[in-house]
């Protein structure tokens, strides 16, 4: 189950050419346990085992659907890294995986992290721009869990979380976007400034400081208290739609001003994938970004390429994704050597 590709890559949602995925995360704690930072390992294991019993009960399945728990200690290092690359666990959970667990829905669009920063981190993923459905599903799982656990909740402050920045609704909406034109023209700086004023934040693919990886960016709400979940969602949706318009305008502008240069870059990126012997994940993803831009502009390629193939590479191009794809462990050097083959196979180039 851990080895397959998640649904959020299927490119079937709204605005799938620019918006890769929509995610909702709810942070929850249980009132009669110490929070994970100071929780004893015995209590952590007790909670994991209790969740394991909860998710097989008919009441839970009825409202949340069938799910399966994996103890992080029992997964291989590769499995854990693959979970990170699929954005199902955090970097912190990869480093400190002991006495932690992950509950996954059958298509991996819903998951619950146990004993991460908070007792529960409920996450729901959808492809394209679809915060609403992601929220509905996460909310359902929250309701299902709530029947079995009494949440740490404060009359004034709302849901209590380890980090004060999540207190209140405990909710984070997050949208992953492909913004090559805005990053090329420098327009992202302006976007970042105006988002910040409204309480939203833009980060790179792997979070803070990872800007410029395949022109992929995550935009999310910073504040969680004082505003209703739906209003945070509507606010973010509006910003996302604004950014989509800006990105499209920037693309129009770029191709009007520098049509030949743009085509040259895009076809060189394609050539790079076709002929490179060594390829890092970042270089590969930056090439994929340009091909994606070409696809959206209607540029012809020698093979038919679709968004789902390009999306799958977002996950497969990374270290664990690549090793899972070929089914063997590889050194950094070997991975760089095998990566061009992965890209060519997924995009069906030169087959």
């Amino acid at each position, binding site marked *: 189950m851990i080895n397959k590709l998640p649904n959020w890559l299927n490119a079937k949602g709204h605005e799938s050419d620019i918006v890769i995925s929509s995610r909702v995360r709810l942070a929850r*704690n249980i*009132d009669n*346990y*110490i*929070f994970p*930072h*100071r929780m004893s390992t015995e209590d952590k294991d007790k909670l994991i085992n209790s969740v394991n019993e909860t998710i097989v009960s*008919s*009441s839970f399945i*009825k409202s949340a659907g069938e799910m399966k728990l994996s103890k992080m200690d029992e997964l291989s*290092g590769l499995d854990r890294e693959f979970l990170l690359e699929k954005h199902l666990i955090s970097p912190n959970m990869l*480093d400190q995986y002991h006495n932690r667990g992950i509950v996954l829905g059958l298509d991996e669009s819903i998951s619950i992290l146990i004993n991460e920063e908070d007792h529960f981190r409920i996450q729901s993923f959808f492809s394209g721009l679809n915060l609403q459905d992601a929220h509905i599903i996460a*909310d359902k799982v*929250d*309701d299902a869990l*709530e*029947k*079995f*656990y*009494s*949440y*740490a*909740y*404060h009359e*004034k*402050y*709302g*849901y*209590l*979380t*380890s*980090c*004060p920045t999540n*207190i*209140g*609704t405990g*909710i984070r909406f997050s949208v992953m976007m492909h913004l090559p034109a805005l990053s090329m023209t420098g327009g992202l700086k302006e976007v970042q400034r105006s988002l910040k004023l409204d309480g939203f934040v833009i980060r790179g693919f792997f979070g803070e400081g990872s800007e*410029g990886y395949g022109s992929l960016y995550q935009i999310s709400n910073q504040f969680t*208290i*004082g*505003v*209703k*979940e739906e209003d945070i969602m509507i606010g973010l949706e509006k910003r996302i739609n604004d950014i989509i318009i800006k990105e499209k305008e920037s693309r129009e502008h770029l191709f009007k001003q520098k049509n030949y240069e743009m085509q040259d870059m895009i076809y060189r990126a394609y050539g790079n994938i076709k002929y490179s012997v*060594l390829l*890092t994940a*970042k*270089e590969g993803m*930056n090439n994929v970004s340009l091909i994606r831009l070409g696809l959206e502009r209607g540029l012809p390629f020698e093979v038919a390429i679709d968004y789902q193939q390009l999306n799958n590479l977002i996950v497969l191009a990374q270290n664990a994704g690549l090793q899972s794809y070929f089914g063997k462990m590889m050194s*950094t*050097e070997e991975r*760089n050597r095998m990566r061009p083959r992965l890209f060519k196979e997924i995009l069906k180039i030169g087959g």
Partner: protein
Amino acid sequence: MICQVCGKNEATICMVKMSNNNKETIYICPVCAGQMDDKLIGSINQLLSPMFDTFFSNSNKLGHDINQICPTCGQTRREWEESRTLNCKDCIQFLDSDEIHNGKIPKNNKEELYVINLIKEKEGHLKQLIAEEKYEEAAKIRDEIKDLKGDFQDDKQTS
């Protein structure tokens, strides 16, 4: 090979990072290697400065006693001000904020929790009775558990 950080310059430096017994090799250019040093020093400064501010006084800027202890988990206000982390539900006493939650409220269906806990308790009792070979009493408890579980399912189906 191209630098894996900026993706522009030629990579001339090979960095090896060790974590959790994993060896990770990164190829970078001299410019990015220089910036990494700056970031490292900056982050150490950031970590240390707030600690010096509160270390030598018994009350914080708002006049709170920094030796105040959370009765549930034992965290002091001094620790809270350094970590800004809630270690349990009662650490919320340390938070000073005018914000008021305006979203979802848990239903906390205590009745259902009560039934679940009751079943668990009776199941424990049942095991004990069987171990002690008190089968007559055990049969009684077994029926009680069955009834409780039945009620529970009925509730689920009608709700």
